[in-house]
């Protein structure tokens, strides 16, 4: 059985502390936005979780390419781990965005380019796990999964750039918003501190979760191998 490395245990604790600090900065330290009020504070974790999801989708795509080149199972494990974490964090991003939208846009959901591409991306990666569930042969499953994540990874930058490429209601915080955007605001110095700290905290949390999930993936792979040995 694999013991958890000491450095990972330290990273677990650091991640929890960073999350607590990010929550403090977002909920207490950052000033209240003049037009939207308290709900604007959701923005810090909305962007943080979106950033985590984007990193995961890119890591998964890269792991897919390396797997196809090397045919080494460890890259398949990295790919699955990254997709799973991204799926969870992107779900949180969508839910937080919807909660923010209710008082600001007066609706929970609208079929805007950014929201639509985000929903499509989430569905693409849900389908990834459905695809994997349907294939028994581990090598075939890994090969199909790798191709799928490479194609799927295209959806992540499309979602990211949707608010910069299309006419949209969704605001752009860094850069110029479209004239039809609603809920745009300029960040003050303290808001920027909370924002960039949240990005940093979520980056560390992503690394910690990815490492933990990779260890679990290795364990799952060993169990599967033993099952195959015993049944054959």
């Amino acid at each position, binding site marked *: *059985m694999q013991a958890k490395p000491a450095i990972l245990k330290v990273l677990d604790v650091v991640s929890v502390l960073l999350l607590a600090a990010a*929550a403090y900065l977002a*909920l207490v330290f950052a000033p*209240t*936005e*003049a*037009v*939207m*009020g*308290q*709900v*604007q*504070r*959701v923005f810090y*974790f*909305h962007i943080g*979780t979106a950033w985590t999801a984007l990193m995961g989708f890119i890591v998964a795509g890269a792991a897919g390419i390396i797997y196809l080149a090397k045919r080494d199972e460890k890259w398949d494990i990295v790919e699955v781990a990254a997709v799973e974490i991204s799926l*969870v964090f992107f*779900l*949180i991003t969508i*839910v*937080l965005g919807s*909660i*923010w939208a*209710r*008082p600001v846009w007066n609706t929970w959901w609208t079929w805007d380019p950014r929201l639509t591409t985000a929903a499509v991306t989430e569905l693409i990666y849900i389908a990834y796990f459905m695809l994997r569930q349907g294939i028994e042969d581990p090598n075939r499953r890994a090969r199909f999964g790798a191709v799928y994540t490479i194609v799927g990874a295209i959806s992540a930058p499309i979602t990211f750039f949707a608010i910069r490429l299309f006419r949209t209601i969704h605001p752009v915080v860094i850069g110029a918003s479209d004239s039809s955007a609603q809920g745009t605001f300029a960040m003050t110095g303290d808001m920027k501190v909370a924002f960039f700290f949240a990005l940093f905290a979520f980056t560390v949390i992503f690394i910690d979760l990815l490492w*933990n*999930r990779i260890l*679990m993936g290795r*364990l*799952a792979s*060993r*169990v599967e191998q*033993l*099952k195959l*040995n*015993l049944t054959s």
Partner: protein
Amino acid sequence: MFFQEAPPDTSAYMIAGYVIFFIISAIYLLSLVIRRRNLEADLKTLEAMQAESRPASARAAPASARKQVRKKVTRRK
């Protein structure tokens, strides 16, 4: 100054947002812990099963080897 409005009270949405964030994160972390625990239990069971099946095959091998040795001995006679 007289016409300046206070920001709307959207605290309930903010609280809902952070509560949902922590609930989904906690569920995911719990699922990681449970799945890891189940995999460790599976691994223990499978390793025990493999260890049980090994002595049987190990016993079979010396028996066949013993027969071959016996054949060689009779041929020499």
